[in-house]
């Protein structure tokens, strides 16, 4: 299995696709490719468009929480992994290269030559990607080539890392389906496993993730807001300690007092600074009103945008540093 951690906006990732197609054509019975978008702003619609535009025929998944990327230690993209039939991670490659096809082929070939029996491919899909806790989720997939009555194990990894298994079996067409109800908030990971038999090689599906909806992260929001306030407010306070306190106060008497205030910490004579600072702000409502409007925008956009912006910081897109 070739795992491709990518983003639709990443030029080098897209540049790998022709090589993937050629490899898939060459190793049609032995190679499964799964592309995993690590970019939170890659919406389903964008991925569908990407699939159409690039002619992708293999499965594309979304790593909406960064869990898969964390599991594989993915930072920069594209990051490619090859996993053997027995689940051994046998190859890892960071970044695009003009001879990427040869590099990957050399890694795949030894694994294919080890194969015995008919190779199989197993898929798994969830009926939804995000649900509320306690909602029934459909888990389905198929075994190729089709085999009836074959036992399929579905390994479910709970948000706390513990695992449980579901068992089901294939129909005459090689498809299977069952249901599961996540009972806790967080990321649930599902993987179907076919143990193999005398005629068929074992196979595993790609992992699918499900987000059992957690409440809005008020603590995180508060922490982020605190950092913003500390950066802006701290610098403001630092500078404003030298500020002329009363904006509309009487003009200072000439000549200027020599050496009157040697330190930033020494306030000018007059009423206590805190009171005058407050007064100055209240007398100038425009900055106050602007701040209020922008704070409102921050509050409205936090839940939907924070994760996207964090992804910019977490994932080093190589096209942004000049590859592609």
């Amino acid at each position: 299995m070739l795992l491709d951690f990518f983003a639709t906006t990443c030029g080098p990732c897209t540049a790998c696709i022709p090589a993937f197609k050629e490899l898939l054509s060459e190793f049609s019975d032995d190679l499964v490719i799964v592309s995993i978008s690590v970019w939170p702003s890659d919406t389903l619609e964008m991925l569908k468009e990407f699939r159409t535009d690039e002619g992708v025929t293999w499965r594309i998944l979304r790593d909406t929480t960064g869990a898969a990327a964390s599991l594989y230690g993915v930072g920069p993209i594209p990051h490619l992994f090859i996993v053997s039939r027995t689940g051994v991670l046998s190859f890892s490659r960071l970044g695009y290269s003009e001879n990427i096809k040869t590099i990957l082929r050399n890694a795949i070939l030894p694994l294919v030559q080890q194969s015995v029996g008919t190779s199989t491919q197993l898929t798994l899909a969830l009926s939804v990607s995000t649900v509320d806790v306690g909602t029934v989720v459909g888990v389905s997939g198929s075994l190729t080539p089709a085999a009836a009555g074959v036992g399929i194990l579905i390994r479910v990894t709970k948000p706390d890392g513990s695992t449980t298994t579901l068992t089901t079996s294939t129909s005459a067409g090689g498809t299977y389906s069952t249901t599961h109800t996540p009972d806790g908030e967080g990321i649930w990971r599902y993987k179907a496993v076919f143990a193999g038999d005398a005629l068929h090689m074992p196979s595993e599906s790609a992992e699918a993730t499900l987000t059992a909806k957690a409440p809005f992260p008020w603590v995180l929001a508060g922490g982020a807001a605190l950092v913003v306030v500390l950066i802006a407010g701290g610098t403001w306070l630092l500078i404003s300690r030298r500020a002329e306190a009363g904006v509309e106060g009487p003009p200072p008497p000439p000549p200027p007092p020599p050496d009157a205030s040697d330190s930033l910490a020494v306030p000018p004579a007059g009423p206590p600074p805190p009171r005058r600072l407050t007064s100055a702000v209240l007398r100038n409502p425009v900055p106050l009103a602007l701040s209020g409007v922008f704070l409102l925008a921050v509050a409205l956009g936090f839940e939907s945008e924070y994760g996207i912006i964090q992804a910019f910081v977490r994932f080093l897109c190589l096209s942004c540093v000049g590859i592609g």
Partner: protein
Amino acid sequence: MRPSVKLSDTRRVTQALGFVLLNLGINTALKTGIVCPALYCYACPLSMFACPFGTLQHFAALATVPLLAGGTIGLFSALLGRAYCGWFCPFGTIQDVVGMITKRKLNPRAFPWSKFVVLLVALVAAYVTTETVFCRYCPSGSLFGALPYVIMYNPDPIPLGVWIHAGTLLLVAAGVLVVERVWCRYLCPVGAIFGTFNRLSALSMKVDTTLCANCKLCLKSCPMGIDSVESIGVSTDCTRCGKCIEACNRDAIKYALGLS
């Protein structure tokens, strides 16, 4: 002793803190989704915050209104105007340091609006191409994104784009030897945004005309080439660095709270 000495020292401390703070993302657990008030490459393996302009480009590419990013940038702007350029931005700090190599510099005043053109063109380009085009040439990205990337990931061969980045960085480095803060003056899109709020921000600067002797020492000290006393604090070029405050012999210029 004049208080301006302490102002310079304070500014150097905040600039150093800005440099350190933005790079704390070397611990990946500290990589946040917060937009910082400086042109800084979020693709850097060390970055802790997101670049405001990279983020705006991304949302322009998505044709989406950036509520969080825009709100954060606006909030920063409404509080301090362009003070971040003078007190916090690591790329400004680097320009200050490199600029120390040459003593005598030119002080041209042509095209002060060019940074607004960069801002507009880059956002339109992002919208049209659906890519963050400006990032490919951003000299701050060269220093804080491409260079750490090459050092940490050792790509072989070094991609063409990295060389392009190196070229833009060298151009700016050469520029600051001739014109102080040349990037901030003419090309920085983040400075253009912050500068727009200089007339509206909570922090402002006041010039007491009753004390001003019209000696123009303040203007001669200005790293941004502001050419009139009336423009101090309100010009979109003013980074509120306070060098004019230090230069004034009569304490006629001060920081203030409220509209300029």
